[in-house]
């Protein structure tokens, strides 16, 4: 086979070839497994996020339940119930009411805005926020007040025209991540008459600079009201803010005037337009559509009557259609009715309200048809046939929406007719996803731009990034497990006939999915959550060994602790609503009432006296009031082998 030397060479190069193949093969396998692990982590984050949103809607049912069944609560304390439903007749307040008593001290070194605002104020704010300065409450209120005035003039849908020389940029969810907004402005330029933007909702919650983002967006809006378009997202909702962190952020940054800001914000939200229509072809809305989406109706409704997704229009006399002709005074004890002489003109009709919820909450899916969005608990899943139907009906070509985090920052589906754009990079955790924005111009195809904010100057290798998001996701999942520990153990033991402490993989996965209500790849995740013996059987108690909920008082029952931990966010929201002066204290009586109601609605089977006793023992009783923040903060999870030791991971 040829002469000696060349056959040696052949053999050598054959060995090199084989060696290269081995390394490449191994590397591709390793790299694929990393990517799969990344996906698993993301699906954990997403499942829990949506399950939480579902929990939020359960809270809304609780409020309705309260009103329907405890009318005596109202009769005894009408203030209490009206407090529950927020709005205190905002329209009567004028500028003086908001700004009157607020002084800006000379010592204030933050940015000072000059009204009427100009582009220099935008620059000023950006520079100040880069240096982590806080805008004084006076300016915040002024900006909000002025924004409300201008927003009121806007129609429900803004119609925009582009041209090849004047393209428009569409951005998705920002969720308080200031770095992403600044990166977008850096790459794509500041908003101006020749550089218009649409921000498609969810500016706030979760990230830690929600108020700063709002201020930049509103100031830009006031300077360029015809070129900076803001659409309402499902998080532009004062009740969502209570659960997902924005309320907390405001109260922390604005200790003195936070409450005023929140009140005004509640109102400003309702005046945000529902959507934008570009060149009569592209519909831009936050969530999605349903088979019954009626754009003509949506153009007409009084959008400011949509206060919160948690405040559906209340039926009158058990009649489920809110017919405006039936203005019966005093036949119900509904709060809105009381304040406005029994007229229900303060509400949308049920149909109108549902239309708006669909727009703000729906998600596209591959399956044809329209189904209730069971993950989120609101809006629906809509298929490609629905998209075609609705787009054709209104002679539109494309739907751009946000609302869902995508690993690449954007995703195209339904045959190119639906585009999701999401602008908060690293949304769940550093390295979890990219952010994106879209540039559109008539006559040109849409262009997508992606980015990812990194803290370090050089980005980490893939395996490190995956490790970070994986551990973060597993941590959150374990916390979920511990908050359902009793139910999980009961389910495991039911299947463990011979009390061996072991279950098959199938049995374990079944219970996990059932009890936690999360559709996750349990088999693939099992290695992170439990120990498996050499026969492949699962030691189901091993999950609970390195993590427990801290007991604030020794003698207290574990199940009580677990329940309080599990519902801590809901309880926080309820308490926050009762605590109208944001003092952090509610009366013992209010505490008892709320607990009784909560107990019966959520069927938690905890003795009221146990909770009282707990509060007593924790010595939180300060002159007949309970410091509920202290109460709730006492229930947190301790990860035994964790450097951080106590949980500070926040999905909210």
């Amino acid at each position, binding site marked *: 086979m040829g002469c000696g030397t060349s056959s040696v060479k052949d053999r050598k190069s054959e060995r090199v070839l084989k060696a290269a193949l081995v390394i490449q093969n191994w590397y591709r396998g*390793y790299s694929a497994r990393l*990517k799969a692990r990344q996906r698993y982590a993301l699906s954990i984050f997403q499942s829990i996020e949506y399950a939480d949103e579902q929990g939020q809607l359960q809270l809304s049912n609780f409020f309705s339940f309260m009103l329907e069944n405890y009318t005596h609560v109202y009769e005894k304390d009408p203030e209490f119930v009206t407090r529950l439903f927020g709005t205190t007749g905002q329209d009567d307040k004028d500028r003086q009411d908001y700004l009157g008593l607020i002084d800006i001290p000379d010592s204030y070194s933050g940015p000072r805005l000059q009204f009427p605002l100009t582009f220099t104020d935008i620059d000023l704010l950006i520079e100040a926020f880069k240096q982590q300065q806080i805008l004084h409450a006076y300016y915040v209120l002024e900006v909000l007040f002025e924004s409300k005035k201008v927003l009121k003039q806007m129609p429900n849908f803004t119609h925009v025209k582009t041209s090849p020389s004047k393209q428009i940029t569409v951005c998705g969810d920002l969720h308080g991540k200031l770095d992403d907004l600044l990166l977008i402005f850096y790459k794509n330029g500041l908003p101006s008459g020749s550089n218009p933007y649409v921000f498609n909702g969810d500016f706030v919650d979760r990230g830690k600079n929600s108020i700063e983002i709002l201020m930049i967006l509103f100031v830009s809006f006031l300077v360029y009201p015809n070129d900076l378009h803001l659409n309402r997202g499902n998080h532009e909702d004062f009740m969502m803010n209570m659960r997902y962190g924005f309320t907390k952020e405001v109260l922390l940054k604005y200790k003195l005037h936070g409450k005023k800001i929140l009140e005004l914000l509640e109102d400003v939200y309702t005046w945000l337009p529902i959507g934008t229509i570009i060149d009569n072809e592209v519909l831009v809305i936050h969530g999605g559509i349903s088979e019954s989406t009626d754009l003509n109706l949506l153009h007409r409704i009084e959008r400011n009557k949509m206060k919160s997704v948690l405040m559906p229009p209340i039926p009158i006399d058990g009649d489920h259609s809110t017919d405006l002709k039936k203005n019966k005074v005093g036949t119900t004890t509904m709060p809105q009715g009381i304040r406005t002489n029994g007229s229900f003109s303060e509400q949308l009709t049920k149909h109108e309200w549902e239309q708006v919820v669909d727009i703000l909450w729906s998600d596209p899916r*591959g399956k044809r048809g329209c189904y209730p969005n069971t993950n989120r608990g609101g809006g629906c899943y809509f298929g490609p046939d629905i998209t075609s139907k609705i787009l054709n009906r209104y002679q539109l070509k494309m739907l751009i929406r946000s609302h869902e985090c995508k690993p690449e920052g954007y995703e195209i*589906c339904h045959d190119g007719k639906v585009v999701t754009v999401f602008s908060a990079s690293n949304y769940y955790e550093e390295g979890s996803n990219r952010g994106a924005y879209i540039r559109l111009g008539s006559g040109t195809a849409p262009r997508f731009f992606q980015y990812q904010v990194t803290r370090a100057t050089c980005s980490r290798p893939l395996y*490190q990034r995956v490790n970070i998001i994986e551990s973060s996701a597993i941590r959150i999942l374990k916390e979920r497990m511990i908050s359902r520990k009793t139910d999980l153990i009961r389910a495991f033991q039911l299947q463990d006939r011979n009390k061996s402490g072991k279950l098959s993989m199938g049995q374990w996965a079944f219970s996990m999915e059932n009890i936690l209500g999360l559709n996750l790849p349990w088999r693939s995740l099992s290695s992170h959550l439990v120990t498996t013996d050499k026969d492949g059987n699962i030691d189901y108690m091993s999950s609970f060994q390195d993590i427990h909920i801290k007991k604030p008082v020794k003698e207290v029952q574990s199940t009580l602790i677990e329940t309080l931990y599990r519902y801590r966010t809901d309880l926080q929201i309820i308490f926050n609503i009762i605590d109208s002066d944001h003092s952090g204290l509610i009366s013992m009586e209010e505490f008892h009432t709320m607990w009784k109601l909560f107990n019966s609605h959520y069927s938690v089977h905890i003795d009221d006296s146990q909770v009282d006793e707990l509060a007593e023992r924790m010595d939180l009783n300060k002159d007949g009031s309970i410091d509920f923040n202290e109460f709730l903060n006492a229930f947190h999870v301790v990860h035994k082998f964790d450097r951080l030791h106590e949980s500070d991971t926040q999905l909210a």
Partner: protein
Amino acid sequence: MKVSSGSIEFLVHEIAVAEFHKKIKEAFEVFDHESNNTVDVREIGTIIRSLGCCPSEGELQDLIAEVEEEEPTGYIRFEKFLPVMTKVLLERRYRPIPEDTLLRAFEVLDPAKRGFLSKEELIKYMTEEGEPFSQEEMEEMLSAAIDPEANSIHYKDYITMMVIDEN
């Protein structure tokens, strides 16, 4: 794998198949973005590898041909993927590379036994030999493997690190 029905082996086999089905479904669903039981064909490689198999690129193409539609649509349906993948798992095909085989492969490329490869050498071998890396794959491997000061990869440490990470 011939198993006679009515025997214990058959029962064990059935249970194994059921578990494989569930595992395959899980791995598939994570990439099924639109929840319509299809995945982009470009993600099939990742799915198969995430299930612990290590086909070469050539073997992967063969597998894809088996699961594709007659008229390729760019999407793979679960109904077609499941039986093919189950067989792969039952037959224990495309077993992963053992650690020492991997080490020996690096040693072949480093005949002088220095204990490392220079960045240029690694790039040359990975992008010119065997089933060459794409630029993206090369950059990705370099980002984790390269010692930036020496511009080289100490393969023994690298392998150890990767193995630990996977376990």
